[in-house]
């Protein structure tokens, strides 16, 4: 520990920035290997059909084309489930290339490899698929109906791993004794991560060593390494994954996709490096989609606003296959986040993933958290209207107070399905913090004045909880280099969020050395044998605790080494401010930590109770133009009980960025499909990612607590997703509020200008 000012808690500017602003970052597309070939994936343009042949003759005749492969060339493998491989999901896994049946537009069917990327693209155009089209099924309601076309005959149905959870009093009895019961069908549209950098993979095989190297990994490189080793029939040690600079992840990038098998397989098969660069159209139909789901919701309450029971029953639209997120993770996350920070007397939740002829789905930042929160917070506003109660008062009445903790929710834990409790957090204080920052009373009064004048101005609030930072472990190794610097290896990943800076702050504080002396290394599985990765707001939490532990171990090793060197007792040696000092017989000697070249230490952070729940709240004000249907957000507040902000600047950056995505999910973005199953959002002209002109400033309130100064990580919680979880809910509620009574009809996302226009007309009439 340093006696000087600490790095942790300070808005340290990012060490990553210099390479990004000078154009010297190294992203996947910047990697080139001598003699490399270029791959182009040829994808199904039919949503559902029997694949009877692939004709590559014309493509193969084109000069420069080296090889065309289809499923017949490959071993019979499937991409495995990474999280919760339930039985039924195993029946509907995706092969790297479509085999016998195509199940969505964008499904890989063949790969062309050529000497030049333009030639590969030309050749891909000439490959002909023989496909007998079948009737596609696109919506969950159609897919679960009797007689619906079945996507995977092996499973024999389109519902995968249906589950039920219930707790507390019987919801039907609660409803029959209630003063008010709200029943709604609420839907969230298909949208997703869409990072700015499309995927890139470069594979190279060292035949002598038997080692396959793959550049372009992200998020979960250690899982992907084991997965690729399994699919290729190689030892894990013979597979090396290298993370380059990553142009955004948001949950989707870095999962194991068909290409993650195809490109290394081709490099081995052809004996030459192979490079694949995804284009934007591919990215919009091949990267995991997310969020599409439909729920029937019933909430009961007393006339004084006391919440009684809820029942949710719904389907998650999984698309054509289950991929690495399996069949139960996403529905479970929705169900677990429906409960939120409120007291309920009982609940029942039924859910399942449903297969449709769309791009397979997976996680997107705040998975299930965003949707579960929206379903509940929207329903609460409809309930408040029914009770003629201020939506804020309704929430205040039902928020769990700190003296009720631990509060047994009865929700089944995602991992082992055991009922769990909320154990920490001040839900009312976090809610009030958002109201205070947003000046609730006065914006509410102002909105009312505008509405009396015939304008459409509304206020929306939301309170939420977020379950994140899952374990089970992360590990770190730290070494003192010859030049006196410190290299810190750690198994997390960077998806652009600034972990190199944040983790260096933690190490600098524990060691008491300048931050410039620290290099964070997290890129290469050849150097870092184990790790979990960057997801679910865990990189700072697990990475930070791992590097803090390794730094403490290094100090202990330094004390021991110096004690031995000087022949004094270990407890006579102290470390502070980057120096090791020994006292013996009144003499005092000092050595700089950085002089102990070659000294190393390791630490594995594996807390017994991994994961935690963070609480937050939002306030939004929306102004609608009834003529054009345009909604403008004039205020957006996020309050978040972070506990301790390691780097307030990067944390606020995470929250502001998450909030923008939350707004985008309510007002703009959708992966639309035509009735016959063709994806319509295949360019940035059609997938409406908002620009600076649409996103408002986000006002962020961070709730921190006094912490033990000796541990820089004490009290810190994850912050990667807090910005997105409740933002969409507050925005939807603000738009609905602006529409008055007609706003109760807002039960599905996105809320488009057309929808706003139509509802504003209702208000007029």
């Amino acid at each position, binding site marked *: 520990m340093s006696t000087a000012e600490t790095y942790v808690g300070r808005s340290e500017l990012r060490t990553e920035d210099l390479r990004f602003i*000078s*154009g010297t970052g190294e992203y996947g597309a910047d990697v080139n290997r001598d003699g490399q070939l270029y791959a182009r994936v040829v994808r199904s343009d039919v949503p559902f059909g029997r694949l009877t042949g692939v004709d590559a003759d014309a493509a193969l005749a084109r000069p420069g084309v080296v090889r065309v492969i289809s499923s017949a060339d490959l071993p019979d493998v499937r991409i495995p489930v990474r999280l919760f491989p339930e039985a039924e999901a195993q029946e509907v896994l995706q092969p790297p290339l479509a085999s016998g049946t195509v199940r969505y537009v964008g499904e890989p069917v063949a790969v062309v490899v050529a000497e030049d990327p333009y030639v590969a693209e030309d050749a891909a155009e000439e490959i002909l698929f023989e496909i007998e089209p079948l009737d596609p099924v696109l919506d969950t309601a159609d897919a679960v109906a009797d007689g619906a076309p079945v996507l995977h005959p092996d499973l024999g149905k389109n519902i995968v791993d249906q589950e039920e959870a219930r707790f507390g009093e019987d919801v039907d009895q609660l409803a029959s004794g209630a003063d008010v019961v709200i029943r709604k069908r609420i839907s969230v549209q298909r949208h997703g991560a869409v990072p700015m950098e499309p995927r890139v993979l470069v594979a190279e095989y060292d035949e002598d060593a038997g080692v396959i190297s793959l550049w372009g990994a992200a998020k979960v490189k250690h899982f992907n390494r084991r997965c690729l080793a399994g699919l290729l029939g190689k030892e894990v040690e013979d597979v090396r994954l290298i993370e380059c600079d990553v*142009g955004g992840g948001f949950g989707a990038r870095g999962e194991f996709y068909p290409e993650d098998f195809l490109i290394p397989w081709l490099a081995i098969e052809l004996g030459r490096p192979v490079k694949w660069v995804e284009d934007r159209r591919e990215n919009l139909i091949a990267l995991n989609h997310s969020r599409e789901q439909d729920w029937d919701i019933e909430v009961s309450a007393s006339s004084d606003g006391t919440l009684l029971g809820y029942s949710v029953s719904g389907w998650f639209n999984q698309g054509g296959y289950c991929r690495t997120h399996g069949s139960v993770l996403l529905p479970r996350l929705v169900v677990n986040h429906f409960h939120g920070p409120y007291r309920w007397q009982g609940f029942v939740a039924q859910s399942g993933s449903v297969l449709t002829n769309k791009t397979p789905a997976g996680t997107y930042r705040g998975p299930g958290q965003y949707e579960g929160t929206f379903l509940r917070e929207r329903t609460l506003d409809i309930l408040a209207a029914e009770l003629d109660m201020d939506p804020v008062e309704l929430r205040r009445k039902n928020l769990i107070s700190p003296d009720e903790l631990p509060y047994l929710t009865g929700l089944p834990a995602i991992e082992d399905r055991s009922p769990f409790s909320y154990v920490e957090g001040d839900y009312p204080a976090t809610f009030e913090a958002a109201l205070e920052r947003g000046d609730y009373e006065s914006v509410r009064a102002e909105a009312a004045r505008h509405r009396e004048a015939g304008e459409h101005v509304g206020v929306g609030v939301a309170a939420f909880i977020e379950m994140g930072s899952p374990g089970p472990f992360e590990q770190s190794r730290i070494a003192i280099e010859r030049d006196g610097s410190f290299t810190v290896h750690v198994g997390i990943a960077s998806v652009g969020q600034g972990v190199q800076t944040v983790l260096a702050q933690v190490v600098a504080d524990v060691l008491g050395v300048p931050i410039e002396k620290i290099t964070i290394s997290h890129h290469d599985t050849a150097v870092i044998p184990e790790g979990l990765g960057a997801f679910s707001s865990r990189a700072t939490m697990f990475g930070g605790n791992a590097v803090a532990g390794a730094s403490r171990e290094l100090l202990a090793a330094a004390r021991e080494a110096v004690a031995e060197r000087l022949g004094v007792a270990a407890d006579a040696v102290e470390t502070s401010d980057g120096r090791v000092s020994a006292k013996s017989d009144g003499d005092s000697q000092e050595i700089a930590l950085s002089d102990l070249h070659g000294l190393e230490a390791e630490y594995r952070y594996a807390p017994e109770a991994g994961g935690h729940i963070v609480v937050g709240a939002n306030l939004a004000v929306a102004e609608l133009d009834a003529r054009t249907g345009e909604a403008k957000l004039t205020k957006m507040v996020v309050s978040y009980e972070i506990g301790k902000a390691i780097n307030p*600047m990067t944390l606020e950056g995470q929250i502001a*960025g998450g909030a923008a995505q939350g707004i985008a999910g309510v007002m703009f973005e959708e992966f639309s499909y035509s009735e016959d199953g063709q994806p319509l959002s295949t360019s940035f002209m059609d997938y409406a990612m908002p620009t600076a002109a649409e996103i408002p400033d986000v006002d962020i309130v961070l709730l921190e607590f006094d912490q033990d100064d000796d541990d820089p990580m004490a009290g810190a919680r994850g912050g990667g997703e807090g910005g997105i979880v409740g933002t969409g809910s507050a925005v939807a509620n603000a738009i609905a509020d602006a529409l008055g009574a007609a706003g109760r009809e807002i039960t599905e996302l996105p809320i488009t200008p057309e929808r706003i226009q139509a509802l504003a007309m209702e208000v007029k009439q």
Partner: protein
Amino acid sequence: MTINGETHQGEVEPRLLLADFIRDRAGLTGTHLGCEHGVCGACTVELNGEPVRSCLMLAIQADGEELRTVEGLAKNLPEGQLHPLQQAFHEEHALQCGFCTPGFLMSLGPLLESDEDLSDDEIREALAGNLCRCTGYQNIVKAVKRARELVADGAPTA
């Protein structure tokens, strides 16, 4: 063509994109391709001082012209000194993953040169030709304001 003051010559197919020439032939990989249809702005470079989308131009269209890419922003400044836009993006945390950043930096020249007062809304409108997925844009708006201050205070831009 001249890129960042250096001549780059080559024989190319007529269909080669300017962006691919810059990245693959000139080896300047700071120019990024985010959509290849002119919406995201990540590939923006300066052609004779004006921002253009290098994914919407062919290399042959830039024959004999003068280009500047992100690598050239601080080239004529004293060693170690950043261009005011780079400085401001760094100080205001206007980037996270950094993939869109070169495109923003190369789009903002005209805004930096103009000395008229601009409201936040006007700055946001001016930024609306570039997409960023990480920041939510508010720190980019701050960075533009900061860079304009730096330039007004005499910071050199070339």
